[in-house]
């Protein structure tokens, strides 16, 4: 296989999830010896594209060609057979095994007499595989559990090179945000390895949020937005601001059409939430305020500490330092139970794992944090109190269900999310924390949720919301706090802000 030949072509790749189009007619060319960057905001379709390549999801439509031959990737193992390798952020390394055994994880171990492990050959081939990537500092006999995140990733990459025949490598390496958990020394080691992979003729598809990395390692970059391929550049023909503009779409009408519906009220005066020098394991010195009736947004890149700030405020993560004041009253150390009781509410990011009791009724899901209020003698359940309230709240959030006794598992993502909203507003909270309130929600439900959030704020609740959808933050919020390095690093008024400006602040470009 020679370098710089067209290795893989993807055409007309489309995929919808429950009517939401995640990928629309995408195309992609991968060239041997090149690293190809794939960028886009959260929800732009990057993960969907990777899942289609890996055969983890079935495309609605897709044509793929490898070395000019049509290939079918829809079977889960086809991609592997054809030479695709996928490096995810969460690496499935077997921690109890040695590095050498992990390198062989997809191959049979070399054996003696058919049933004994040939440890000498195992070790030799492990060293060879690592050396092909120029990795010399990892001892193949170490236990994988002791590897750093960066070394674990190198081992995972090297496992693709464990084959006996060094030329038998028609490899396309797909890396999904590989540097998210790496420090700078590990990152530069990874980049060296990527250069070596390219020298061997591999094609790389490199998904990242960090644009500066692309200019270091990539030759080409494809921009996705709202499921469509917006552009594909040679890296030398573009620059950061152009890429950001393409990712966010300058033409997106932020305030113009949405802002009219969710327009901000005049700023109220009194401070609802005051946070002073808050520290947890992932938050480093957060200080900010939210006023009564205000919608404050938290913007930031993955890993900037947005969700973790909400964890700290809601008593999920223990505080190491700092003070939280609600309506001028200093709060005692919080637990989620105490936070609910103090008039705070929380809609978590992962509604299925963190929010819902999927096997339980709609009404019970709504009432769960509020059972004390809905009971007799603080002991006995009184359905005649909970049910009318659940019905009323269900109407307020425009829930569409067959019955209050329907199992939540059967509902759509949008309706599940609305259940969490109904739960959040049941006790008329003073402060509502929202983490990605419209993630995985269809367009109609999204609109309902925007309307509801605005309504809650107009009624006097303070809202602090995390969102990766910048247009949503700009349209909905009065003020946006930009998270960088585990704390709100700056505050921007939402009025007049463009997505490009906001994204630049997230990346902290001067």
């Amino acid at each position: 296989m020679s370098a710089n030949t067209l290795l893989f072509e993807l055409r007309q790749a489309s995929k919808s999830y429950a009517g939401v189009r995640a990928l629309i007619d995408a195309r992609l060319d991968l060239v041997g010896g090149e690293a190809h960057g794939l960028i886009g905001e959260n929800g732009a379709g990057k993960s969907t594209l990777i899942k289609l390549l890996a055969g983890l999801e079935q495309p609605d439509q897709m044509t793929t060609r490898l070395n000019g031959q049509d290939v079918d990737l829809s079977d889960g193992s086809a991609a592997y057979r054809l030479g695709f390798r996928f490096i995810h952020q969460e690496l499935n390394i077997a921690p109890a095994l040695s590095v050498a055994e992990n390198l062989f994880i997809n191959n049979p171990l070399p054996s003696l007499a058919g049933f004994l492990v040939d440890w000498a050959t195992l070790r030799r081939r492990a060293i060879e595989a690592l050396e092909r990537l120029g990795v010399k500092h990892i001892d193949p006999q170490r236990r994988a559990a002791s590897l750093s995140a960066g070394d674990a990733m190198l081992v995972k990459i090297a496992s693709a090179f464990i084959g006996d025949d060094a030329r038998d490598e028609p490899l396309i390496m797909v890396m999904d945000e590989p540097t998210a958990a790496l420090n700078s020394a590990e990152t530069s080691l990874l980049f060296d390895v990527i250069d070596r992979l390219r020298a061997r003729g591999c094609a790389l598809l490199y998904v990242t949020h960090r644009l500066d990395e692309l200019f270091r390692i990539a030759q080409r970059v494809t921009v996705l937005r709202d499921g469509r391929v917006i552009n594909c550049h040679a890296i030398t023909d573009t620059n950061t601001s152009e890429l950001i503009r393409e990712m966010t779409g300058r033409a997106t009408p932020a305030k113009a059409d949405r802002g009219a519906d969710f327009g901000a009220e005049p700023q109220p005066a009194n401070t609802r939430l005051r946070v002073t020098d808050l520290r947890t394991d992932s938050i480093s010195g957060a200080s900010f305020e939210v006023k009564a009736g205000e919608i404050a947004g938290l913007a930031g890149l993955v890993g900037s500490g947005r969700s973790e700030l909400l964890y700290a405020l809601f008593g999920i993560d223990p505080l190491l330092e700092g003070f939280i004041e609600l309506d001028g009253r200093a709060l005692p150390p919080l637990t989620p139970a105490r936070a609910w009781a103090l008039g705070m509410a929380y809609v978590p990011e992962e509604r299925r794992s963190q929010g819902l009791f999927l096997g339980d009724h709609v009404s019970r899901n709504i009432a769960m944090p509020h059972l004390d209020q809905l009971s007799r003698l603080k002991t006995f359940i009184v359905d005649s109190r909970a049910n009318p309230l659940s019905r009323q709240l269900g109407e307020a959030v425009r829930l569409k269900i067959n019955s209050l006794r329907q199992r939540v598992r059967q509902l759509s993502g949008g309706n599940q999310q609305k259940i969490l909203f109904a739960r959040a507003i049941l006790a008329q909270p003073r402060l509502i924390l929202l983490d990605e309130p419209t993630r995985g929600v269809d367009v109609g439900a999204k609109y309902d949720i925007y309307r509801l959030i605005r309504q809650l704020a107009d009624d006097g609740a303070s809202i602090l919301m995390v969102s990766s959808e910048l247009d949503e933050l700009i349209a909905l919020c009065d003020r946006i706090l930009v998270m960088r390095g585990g704390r709100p690093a700056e505050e921007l008024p939402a009025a007049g802000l463009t997505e490009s400006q906001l994204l630049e602040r997230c990346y902290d470009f001067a």
Partner: protein
Amino acid sequence: MKLFASAAETRARFSLTAFLRRYGTLVGFILIVLFFWIQRPQTFMTIPNWVNISRQMSILGVVAFAMTIVMVTGDFDLSVGAMASLVGIVAGTTFQSGGSVASAVTLGLLVGAVGGLLNGVLVAAVGISAFVATLGTLTVFRGLALYISGGASIYGRTIPAEFSSFGRGTIALGRIGETDLVLPNLTILAFITLVLVFIVLNFTIVGRRLYAIGGNMEAARFGGIRIRRLRLLSFVISGLGAAVAGLMLFSRLSTAHPTQGEGLMLQAIAAVFLGMTLSEESQPNVIGTLIGVLILGVLANGLTQMQIDTYIQQISTGVIIILAVTLSSLSQQQGHFGRWLRRLFRQSPADSS
């Protein structure tokens, strides 16, 4: 804005697989009863025999009902059998040193509560898995029982008559034809436990929160449920249930042997599992547990009447538990066997969902 959408798609169509999944255990129970009725027409389906079954099963019932609470939260308690033995020995030792019935019972219940608290602390606060924690305390409790008793049974005249007569005692309810209708004291105790657990699990905040913890522990925590406290409580209840059962066993046998409660643990867990098959979401529920206890009780009673070897009884009990749980897990995702069985019943996958 209408809250309820059209309910057209919720209309049910009869499906054999779905029916067996949901009610197979109940059908099985009825079949077992019918089988013994046919086999032993004179003795099986009689009031005295059912009174007898209820007495035989009362001790297991108390343990299993309390165990249901622990299993609702997704944990289980392996130490209940050893605890029941230990409580018998504690009460027996109290009698030997001249203690009254009240003090022996109080001390026994206290031991049960403290042992349950220990389990709860290990699981909910220290964070050890329930399997390891209660396996450890099982061994500790058994060792304690053997140590305190010196490995010997406690019986004879040191045990107050009013204590041992309670276990054999009955309350007369009247007569039906030729037979006296009586309720054994032990049956009444088991019934009281059943009612209490039923109320807690179905009508109280605590019960709903316990189910929430079992359904999704992280969501429960984010939703403001004090998980640690409730898990602790569930183990204390389980320990208390084991203590009550230990006292009942001691009273009924008039003997406290340091290992006499050991069979209870596996049977109690089996009863809860059998009961879970009767719930739509495969959750532990105390009425289901009651059915599970009755299945085990009727099997033991019927097979004994048919003079079948107790070893064979164990084999058949095990087979029935496995069958029941297999039948209830015939959902789409559950592997080749489920798919194979569905083909056998010629059901389209949509029907059995």
